[in-house]
């Protein structure tokens, strides 16, 4: 998103321009893992919120997957009532500090903001982030009274955005909620995948802590399907189960040499860096390869996060290797822009076909092919086609394969009656996420395949209502 710093003018009337977001300077920030955008001040927030013309039929709201009352919260910001604004957002979105940072607003609310037709849309995401941070920093996050206990027990498997959302909703309805999380920390992709420089972990921790204060029980180190099955959960007296286990299994390309040392899945690379804090090795015990010449294969958000992590770990050359062109990249525009500013080198229309290792089995070179764009495929994007005889090599010492993820089969394998589709994702009967197994709901990436934080949250929210109705009718 470009910020037009100059004053916008219409009919000779002065308009307030979209307020730019102050950011860490690119040269400085590649040397640290601190957050890149620094946030609005109260003054800029008010100025920006005043740009909203309070539409009668707000386009922005129709673009929001969880129907946040956007003009409602913007009005409160414009009036300087930041806590009121935060409460307004939280009526439908329980993780605004997260969403304000990672939602693709340019494809959602801001895309449909009326101002965007002639000028720049209102910076809804930045304001969402501002009010959530304001509320947290003011220590004003309130824990609502929970209603009388219903005596119903619900197990939530997976502590990603889907699981955290449904747990919050159900506990507020008076149910007893326990989250089972396989890793040692709650948060899902928010904690292990998305880097600190884009989403500080203290924010995720604060959200998880808030749920604990609401009364949600969180059991970490509990891999369902291994420690206990879904059947065991029912046997233990849970009345309903929600599966929000994400699409966490990495996809490799199955090309020769892909198992050489120095070649990571994006999941491993980011988990080492974010969850295990390998960037602080040896203060933290987990190591990570600090490559000089790092190639990241792929063009999505995960690839951008990986390549920017590589730079911060000291890479001299950090490449994005993508088989289509910039126009087809699925990553958020803002992230591509950040990566460019930081010096990432993009190699478009390029696809690796083989890795070459040294005598110690460490990757030292990749063989690539050049591509050109052909006819559009099912996704509507033009299909990359190999240019024959175009092979060339790039010297590299670290590779991060970021070409997607798939469903982890452990839960479906150990849960009789739970149907999956041909990609291994859980089949749901309706939009509440009810599965083919009685009493079991599912939502988030494990149903849709890799999607977004807000869609996972939306799925958790819808399932919460359905589970509430189900257990109350028991």
């Amino acid at each position, binding site marked *: 998103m470009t910020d037009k710093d100059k004053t916008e003018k219409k009919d000779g009337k002065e308009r307030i321009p979209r307020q730019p977001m102050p950011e860490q300077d690119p040269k400085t920030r590649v040397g640290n893992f601190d957050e890149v955008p620094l946030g609005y001040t109260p003054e800029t927030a008010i100025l920006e919120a005043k740009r909203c013309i309070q539409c009668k039929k707000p386009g922005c709201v129709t673009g929001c997957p969880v129907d946040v009352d956007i003009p409602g919260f913007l009005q409160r910001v414009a009036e300087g009532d930041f806590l009121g604004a935060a409460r307004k957002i939280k009526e439908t979105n329980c993780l605004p500090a997260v969403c304000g940072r990672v939602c693709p607003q340019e494809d959602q609310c801001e895309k449909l903001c009326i101002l965007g037709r002639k000028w720049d849309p209102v910076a809804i995401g930045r304001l969402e982030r501002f009010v959530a941070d304001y509320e947290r920093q003011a220590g004003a996050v309130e824990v609502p009274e929970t209603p009388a206990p219903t005596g119903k027990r619900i197990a939530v498997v997976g502590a990603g955005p889907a699981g955290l959302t449904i747990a919050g909703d159900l506990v507020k309805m008076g149910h007893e909620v326990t989250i089972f999380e396989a890793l040692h920390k709650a948060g899902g992709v928010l904690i292990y995948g998305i880097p600190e420089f884009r989403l500080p972990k203290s924010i995720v921790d604060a959200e998880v802590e808030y749920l604990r204060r609401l009364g949600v029980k969180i059991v970490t180190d509990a891999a369902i399907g291994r420690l206990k099955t879904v059947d065991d959960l029912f046997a233990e007296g849970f009345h309903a189960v929600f599966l929000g286990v994400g699409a966490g299994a990495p996809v490799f390309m199955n090309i020769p040499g892909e198992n050489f040392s120095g070649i990571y899945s994006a999941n*491993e690379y980011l988990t080492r860096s974010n969850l295990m804090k390998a960037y602080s090795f040896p203060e933290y015990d987990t190591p990570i390869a600090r490559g000089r010449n790092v190639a990241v294969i792929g063009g999505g958000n995960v690839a951008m996060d990986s390549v920017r992590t590589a730079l911060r770990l000291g890479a001299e050359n950090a490449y994005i290797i993508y088989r289509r062109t910039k126009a087809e990249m699925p990553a958020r525009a803002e992230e591509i822009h950040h990566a460019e500013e930081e010096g990432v080198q993009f190699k478009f229309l390029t696809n690796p076909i083989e890795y070459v290792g040294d005598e110690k089995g460490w990757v030292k070179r990749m063989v690539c092919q050049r591509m050109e764009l052909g006819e559009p495929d099912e996704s509507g994007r033009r299909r990359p086609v190999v240019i024959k005889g175009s092979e060339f090599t790039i010297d590299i010492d670290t590779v991060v394969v970021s070409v997607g993820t798939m469903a982890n089969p452990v839960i479906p394998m150990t849960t009789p009656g739970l149907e999956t589709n041909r990609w291994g994702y859980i089949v749901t009967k309706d939009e509440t996420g009810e599965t083919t197994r009685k009493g079991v709901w599912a939502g988030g990436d494990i149903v849709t395949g890799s999607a977004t934080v807000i869609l996972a949250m939306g799925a958790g929210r819808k399932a919460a209502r359905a589970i509430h109705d189900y257990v109350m009718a028991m």
Partner: protein
Amino acid sequence: MHRITEKVVLSENIVKTVFEAPEIARKRRAGQFVILMIDEKGERIPLTIVDSDPVKGTLTIIYQVVGKTTDQLAQLGPGDVIGHVLGPLGHPTDVDGIGTAVCVGGGVGIGVLYPIARALKEKGTRVISIIGARTKKMLILEEESRGVSDELHVTTDDGSYGYHGFVSDVLRDLIASGTKIDRVFAIGPVPMMRVVSNVTRPHGIRTLVSLNPIMVDGTGMCGACRVTVGGKTKFTCVDGPEFDGHEVDFGLLTSRLQMYAEQEQLARDRCRCGNHDR
């Protein structure tokens, strides 16, 4: 939090630790492992569950002190805690319907092998165990192994105890003497598992090895633990840890285990230098 209830030094650098993990203790089966993380700055490392007591709710692990984390673990005693324990992970060993099995264990691998030998014995399998160490004072679990074996052979590389030579030599002799063997389980250092697999290959004896690649999550999420078996990539934590020894690419496993050699050395030096207190 998992409280340690017992710690025994079994040999020069091999330690046994017993700690509380009641749910895992009830559920685990032979061949499975846990991933543990001592504290919030720690690394997640995989260790085999050697034994469990479902009544007391404890697990037993036996490990060789090879680096930072195992060193730190070995410093902990009764009353200390291990922050995080995830498990039971991996497929349990298939111990059904095996007439005669030879269980070959080297070094700390004897500890990993012991629960498998015991499970086989409980299923009525005739168990021949061959256990070996570099030298006598590094040998572990001799009595325990004898207790679950119909026949026990002990070797040391330096001849300080038992047969002077390698476990694979004894296996070769057993095969040459016409002993009928239905399955071999080989667990120990990578070179040992490779040699054992080479010994049994010409005889077509199904040989299972338990692989020990570097892991992170242990749930199939990262792919750190990938190995090549029969030309295909497998994730040890979910597809293993046991694989057909005749199909495993041991060279790849060896090189991948070296991936962090430099950093591991740094972590060890730092740990012993007393610069940081834990």
